[in-house]
């Protein structure tokens, strides 16, 4: 213990010399994030709450009075309700499969990861080639005689069908993102635990339920959290698949900014999207919190 008091002088001096270094290293990042992330966000609130006539909720009123608002709102929520649970199960299954170390696992890994680098616009275009009336799905369905005449999947009058089609494309594109987080979590679980459960006679589903699931909870929380946040931003995939048949919150924000040139209403939409994302994040945090007394050390 006493040795600490007699620390050699040169080391101590060197330490002091470098004390400011980490701050210099992070300074450019702090400035950049401040200028191009924090400040625009504050401006965004300003734009939404203040226009030429002064402060007020005019932009929000314009937004809500527009018929497209409730449509966009309900379409976005429907999408999330359909997409997120299905893709959670799928992502969990994919992570388990990768973790099972199958032979040829490297190939599966490559294929499973592919959608991570594919944009929502490209996903929408690719799936539109499949779902369009004269597309690949109808070709296959007719080939195996499930339908006689091409089925209209992208029926602009049927919200249900549009939701399902967009959901398929979004599940295809964004499930990998959850899988990556869950897989990283799975790798943190010591194999001994799972094997011990196996020795004591736990079947596959029991192992998942009583060993893997509880230990994976932090990763599940993060995966759901981030996925939900991004889910409210769903945009290009909807446009590519439905044209103007359906609108979501982000596409309305885009329309107000680019077409109607009203940045106040566009900002109001972005504030709504932000609010909903944060609310969803809060719900996940509360719903999946681990009681203190049950926390593992």
């Amino acid at each position: 213990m006493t040795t600490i008091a007699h620390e050699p002088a040169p080391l101590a001096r060197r330490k002091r010399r470098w004390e400011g270094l980490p701050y210099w290293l992070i300074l450019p990042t702090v400035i950049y994030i401040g200028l191009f992330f924090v400040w625009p966000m504050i401006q965004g609130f300003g734009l939404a709450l203040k226009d030429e006539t002064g402060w007020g909720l005019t932009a929000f009123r314009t937004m809500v009075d527009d018929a497209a608002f409730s449509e966009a709102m309900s379409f976005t929520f429907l999408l999330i309700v359909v997409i997120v649970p299905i893709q959670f199960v799928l992502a969990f299954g994919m992570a388990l499969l990768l973790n099972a170390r199958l032979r040829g696992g490297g190939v599966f890994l490559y294929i499973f990861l592919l959608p991570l680098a594919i944009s929502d616009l490209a996903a929408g275009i690719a799936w539109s080639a499949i779902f369009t009336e004269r597309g690949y799905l109808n070709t296959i369905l007719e080939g195996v005689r499930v339908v006689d005449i091409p089925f209209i999947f992208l029926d602009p009058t049927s919200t249900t069908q549009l939701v399902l089609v967009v959901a398929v494309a979004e599940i295809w594109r964004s499930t990998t993102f959850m899988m990556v987080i869950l897989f990283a979590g799975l790798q943190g679980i010591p194999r001994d635990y799972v094997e011990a459960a196996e020795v004591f006679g736990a079947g596959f589903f029991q192992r998942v339920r009583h060993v893997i699931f509880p230990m994976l909870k932090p990763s599940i929380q993060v995966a759901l959290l981030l996925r939900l946040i991004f889910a409210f931003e769903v945009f290009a995939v909807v446009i590519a698949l439905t044209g103007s048949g359906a609108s979501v919150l982000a596409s309305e924000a885009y329309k107000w900014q680019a077409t109607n040139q009203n940045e106040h209403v566009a900002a109001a939409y972005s504030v709504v999207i932000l609010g909903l994302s944060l609310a969803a994040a809060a719900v996940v945090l509360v719903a999946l919190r681990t009681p203190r007394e049950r926390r593992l050390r």
Partner: protein
Amino acid sequence: MALQRIRIGRMLAYVAALAISAFILAPIYFITLSAFSTFDAVYEYPKQLVPKDVSTDSMSLFLNADGIVGSLQRSAYVAAITIVVCLAIGTPAGYAIARFAFRGGNSFQLALVSTRAFPLIIIAVPLAVTYLRVGIDDTVYGVAMAHIAFTLPLTVLVTASVFAGISYELEEAAMTLGCNRLSAFRRVALPLALPGVAASAIFVFVTSWNEVFAAAILTFSNRTLPAQLLVALDASPLPHRLAGGFFLLAPALVVIFFIRKYLLTTWGRVAR
């Protein structure tokens, strides 16, 4: 009995993995097929499920269309600027997080993580207004600056995790052998970190290449590829659209091959 059950379990696992692979590959296969078919094959119904009329007609229609080559170039510029700036500012910050315990370090890290909770949309609209005022609207620099704001936090976190995986003792050894701090970093830590840093650069590239909302809002005539495709979606003929979709998607096939290992080790951990 138990052995048999394990064998059945393995088989089911294979079936599931194959089914999911088919689901993932099908759209990629179909859009590639369409992008390299003759016009007639693109419009015909029922569609060919195997490549028969292979041709580069759609591709050349797409590449010769007005503004496409320009938008490809701009997409490449934007991604290049984004990568260079992200690495130039992000790597030092990542190094600082990995190597120094300093006051405020944890809050800095937490702040970076929490930026991910904020959608790009909320910074894109105000930036469009500011750019108009400053006069950098409709430029690649403007789009790049928005992309940097969005990718910088992740770059810092990933590079921090990369440097944390490289033992500091190696740098210390170099310093006892006559390196100073900077040359120890440059000659020891940086070469070892290079593959991980390159992986994060590739991921920045993908994010920028794919980003469509901000790019579409911040430009009017100098559009990037995704923005150009998005605004022309209704107006463009089918072969053009499909070839464009293929162009947008193709880098993914190469990129994932190179960074697949890093995605799971570094990126998956950082995402938490």
